């Protein structure tokens, strides 16, 4: 145990002495998040929306007044048919339609729940999310207000529909993608390079001649990069929540746990790479070619997987980041729990075990 501490301390010296790499490691995620944040965030003001009020009662009027009061919208009141709404969207004249069904107040008073339909043009996903979030917030406020007045549990359910882009590809896709990319980059690249460096420098031999268990060497290599990756994860999450307004709908604990699993997968991949090459350049090249590029191409955050030819879609399955990406989207955006992602988790777990086993075996062979 004491020896592990001695080793880990040494690894931290290596990491902190290498200022340039350290700067790159922490700078990279920040730059990516900020760049995309500014590229995609636009202040939403005076967006043109249409309100179709079929009920025209006290409740609907009050909500509409609230919507008018905010300066985010330019409102037109009209009763439009489904086809009118669609053509208006297609011409790009309007951003959102809010529909109050007939008997809105009636339903609310007697059935204790009523629905409002919110349809948004999600071809610009950021705007669409923001607009529907504004309206949902206004509706929620109103609901709180009337619950305060009556003893009845009243419910208004905004039914949101995203037209043209139901999964909201965009910033919400980008953040989980950057998370996958950065975690993979730090863990795979840095682990493999730092192990190979010991071989290149000749210090690995000295360690192997010493009474130290070789696996202790490997484990202590992993610790600093695990810590660095978790710090990076925290930075990405803080930036995406406060800068990009990205929600974390699910459990943060689950998100961190799943990210730790991906870090372990990546660390074992880095270990495998380090056993198959003897030079730092080699390790870097393999890491970049075998990991970074496929992660960018085939994870699904840059190019939708569904549009790729079948062989490439099948190939994407071997990438840990693909599964992690699904997991993160499920937790952050859809707010799902472990029950929804146990399959993906199991796949990542299996990959980690497999990689560890292969690399430990290769590591042993090299010792012989």
């Amino acid at each position, binding site marked *: 145990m004491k020896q592990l501490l001695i080793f880990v301390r040494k690894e931290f010296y*290596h990491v902190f002495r290498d200022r340039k790499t350290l700067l790159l490691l922490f700078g990279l995620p920040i730059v990516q998040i900020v760049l995309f944040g500014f590229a995609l965030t636009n202040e939403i003001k005076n967006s043109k929306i249409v309100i179709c009020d079929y009920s025209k009662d006290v409740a609907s009027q009050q909500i509409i007044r609230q919507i008018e009061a905010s300066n985010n919208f330019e409102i037109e009141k009209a009763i439009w048919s489904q086809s009118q709404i669609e053509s208006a969207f297609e011409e790009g004249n309007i951003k959102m339609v809010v529909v109050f069904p007939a008997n809105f107040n009636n339903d609310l008073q007697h059935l204790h729940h009523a629905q409002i339909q919110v349809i948004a043009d999600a071809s610009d996903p950021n705007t669409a999310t923001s607009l529907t979030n504004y309206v949902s917030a206004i509706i929620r406020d109103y609901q709180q207000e009337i619950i305060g007045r009556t003893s009845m549990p009243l419910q208004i359910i905004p039914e949101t529909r995203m037209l043209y882009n139901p999964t909201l590809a965009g910033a919400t896709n980008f953040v989980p993608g950057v998370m996958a990319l950065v975690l993979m980059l730090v863990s795979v690249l840095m682990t493999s390079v730092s192990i190979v460096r010991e071989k290149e*420098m000749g*210090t690995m*031999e000295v360690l192997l*001649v010493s009474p130290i268990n070789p696996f202790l060497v490997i484990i202590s290599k992993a610790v600093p990069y695990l810590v660095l990756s978790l710090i990076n994860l925290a930075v990405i999450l803080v930036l995406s929540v406060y800068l990009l307004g990205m929600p974390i709908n699910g459990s943060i604990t689950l998100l961190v746990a799943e990210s730790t699993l991906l870090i372990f997968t990546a660390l074992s991949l880095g270990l495998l790479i380090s056993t198959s090459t003897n030079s730092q350049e080699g390790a870097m090249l393999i890491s970049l070619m075998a990991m970074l590029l496929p992660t960018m191409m085939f994870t699904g955050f840059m190019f939708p997987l569904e549009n790729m030819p079948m062989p490439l879609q099948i190939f994407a399955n071997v990438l840990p980041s693909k599964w992690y990406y699904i997991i993160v989207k499920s937790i952050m955006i859809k707010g799902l729990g472990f029950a929804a992602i146990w399959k993906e988790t199991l796949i990542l777990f299996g990959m980690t075990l497999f990689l560890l086993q292969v690399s430990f075996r290769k590591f042993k062979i090299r010792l012989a």
Partner: protein
Amino acid sequence: MQEVVIKTDKLTKRFGDFIATNEITFEVYAGEIFGFLGANGAGKTTAMRMLCGLSKPSSGQATIAGYDIYKETESIKKHIGYMSQKFSLYEDLTVMENIRFFGGIYGLTNKQIKEKIKNLAEKLGLQDQMRKLVGSLPLGWKQKLAFSVAVIHEPRIVFLDEPTGGVDPVTRRQFWDLIYEAADNGITVFVTTHYMDEAEYCNRISMMVDGVIKALDTPANLKAHYGAASIDEVFFELARGAKRSAD
């Protein structure tokens, strides 16, 4: 009767069809400086790697400090020190951090390490350099430091793989002073080298050609036996028939 600390019996390492070391048999006595000579590619490093437990022999037997190299590698590791051909300290760590790290992995207590740091600083004249990065030191100092670190845990035997490559003659002389000092303290020194003048400093030397030990004796006896004026000439005499070209 002298105590035997390294004993090999027909130790062999094959890589496919290539026999790197072929049935080498020799003994090294406690406290002696044993020179392990040979041209590049003669099989010195392979033999040494087997003795250190870095490489498994294909056949043959050997004991190091009384421990079997197949079954008791863990015990062997506690009783040997090793300095590799490449410079083997961490360049991005300070002198002190290096000493602390290597002392630590050999299980020295903090108190012992503190004492070692003090002694080494005095002995090597490094008092002012302790907090400097090892990478910033001149090569000569680095080599001396690497040797001191290799014997920090006072091993029975220290293996030196071409320790003086690329160092100037003055530093080499100083380096050998350190080796003598270690031998005086009862540490057996097993050293490979290219430099034939260094061979003269050894108590006994062996000469390897094409994976086989061709000669093994004191430098004086070897010179007398081959009627040569220097070890250099002995080596030429023996290595002339070598089939393996250098590297």
